[in-house]
């Protein structure tokens, strides 16, 4: 289990400053949520963290080591990401076997067959799915494969970029339960982006509310039901979400 410390993360695309001085700490084994409206920079935080975007200011430490100081293989085995859209995150011409073995080959791991079978069992898919192609899988199954791909390198930190928002409600629950079970079994640290406070309430111990590239407040899960936020924007966001739930 490793902690994640983000200090003064900043990034600008041209003139627009997308992230401004983002700081937060995630305890080892914690699930930390990032919520906010569209365009508030939630996903950008994850992309910076994983060095998918490399030109940004500030520092990120995972388990005490800066991500920039890690060699690529070490970084890959420390943090992995699950993307929002399971339809776009699996290569359409790669079978599940190719998708999973690619990680193992690149990182020079052995026992491919055992590892692939293990990880498929972990995410609750039958082993004969190895020879299927993405178009032969449902959305929930695809997302399980995407999670399996993230798990196969046995990372310490999993970045979840709205892992359920592209899925049906019943499938959402399945995937969330799967993620919760995996965390309990393997002790991952999660950083989860979501715009659904119900999901955050279900999964995360603490969460940060983001607005226009800034973290306005960091709250514990317990603040959701009674709307215990002090910042006006966070109050408004939680209030709106509670009202929506009541209306549904």
């Amino acid at each position, binding site marked *: 289990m490793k902690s994640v410390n983000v200090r003064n993360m900043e990034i600008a695309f041209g003139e627009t400053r997308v992230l401004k001085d983002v700081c937060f700490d995630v305890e080892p084994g914690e699930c930390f949520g990032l919520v906010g409206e569209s365009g508030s920079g939630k996903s950008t935080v994850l992309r910076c963290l994983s060095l*998918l975007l490399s030109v940004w200011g500030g520092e990120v430490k995972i388990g005490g080591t800066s991500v920039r100081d890690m060699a690529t293989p070490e970084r890959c085995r420390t943090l992995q990401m699950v993307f929002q859209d399971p339809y776009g*995150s*699996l290569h359409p011409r790669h079978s599940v076997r190719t998708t999973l073995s690619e990680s193992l080959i690149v990182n020079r791991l052995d026992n491919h*067959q055992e590892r692939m079978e293990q990880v498929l069992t972990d995410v609750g898919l039958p082993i004969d799915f190895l020879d299927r192609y993405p178009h032969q899988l449902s959305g929930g199954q695809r997302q399980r494969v995407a999670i399996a791909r993230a798990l196969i390198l046995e990372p310490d930190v999993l970045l979840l970029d709205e892992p359920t928002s592209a899925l049906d409600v019943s499938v959402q629950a399945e995937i969330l339960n799967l993620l919760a079970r995996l965390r309990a079994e393997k002790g991952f640290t999660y950083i989860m982006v979501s715009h659904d406070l119900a999901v955050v309430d279900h999964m995360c111990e603490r969460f940060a509310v983001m607005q226009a590239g800034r973290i306005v407040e960091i709250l514990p899960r317990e603040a959701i039901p009674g709307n215990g936020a002090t910042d006006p924007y966070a109050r408004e966001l939680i209030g709106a979400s509670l009202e929506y739930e009541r209306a549904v």
Partner: protein
Amino acid sequence: MTMTDASQRPARETVKRVPQSLIALRNILTFLLKSPTSAFGLLVLAVLLSGAALAPLLATHDPYAQDLQSALQAPSMAHFFGTDELGRDIYSRILYGSRITLTFITLVSVIVGPIGLLVGTVAGYFGGRIDTVLMRITDIFLSFPSLILSLAFVAALGPSLNNAIIAISLTAWPPIARLARAETLTFRSADYIAAARLQGASSGRIIWRSIVPMCLPSVLIRLTLNMATVILTAAGLGFLGLGAQPPLPEWGAMIATGRRYMIDSWWTVTFPGLAILCVSLAFNLLGDGLRDALDPKQMNRR
């Protein structure tokens, strides 16, 4: 129990995975055969291939044997397509000429496809300065008319079949590169590329394993459509005396020499011309058919 499981599995995989590509190939073939135009393309291609392979069996005469006694004879049972000014059997020459044509298009495609793919995917994936440099080079090659550029190359290197192949390859790769770059640009920000980067794959590996398979169908289609142009350019170079040299039975060169006797002996140019027409038409139709067969939107049905 688990031991037998693990030892049996690899054997089953190899049995299972080879047919996967064969099934895809069969599906594409049946799709092509369904539409009459691409079926015609396939048919002509099959005739061309078998003609080239079985030329010694099918030919009635030696394509190089001169017989001045029977020069410029009209088509008859002895000479299906007549004879040329040196008494050589045109039917046999066309059969042997199909070998030259096939060599031509295969070599040009084999040279042009990888170069175009490489330049296009590298430019598209890296973007920025690399993209600018590679694309400006491509632009320079594109801004010349291809026949004129091939003429210049052949003039510099000396007329021969191999030089004609090199010259045509040099002018045929830029459209492929542009196409591959355009395709790459649409995939490079996809999540599965980001995922591959997070898996620790190097840029070369991402290009080869993730991007090239996505570009391949459209590049293949483009190559097939290109073959028609290549055949025409090769015939053009041959006609101008800059491609295959006599006595090689190259179709373009046959038209060039037959031109002088065209008025009295129509068969000297008609049959090589028809051969060029049929084959380039066939490749065009086949390319069109392939475009429908390999359309990514229809891939899901297979």
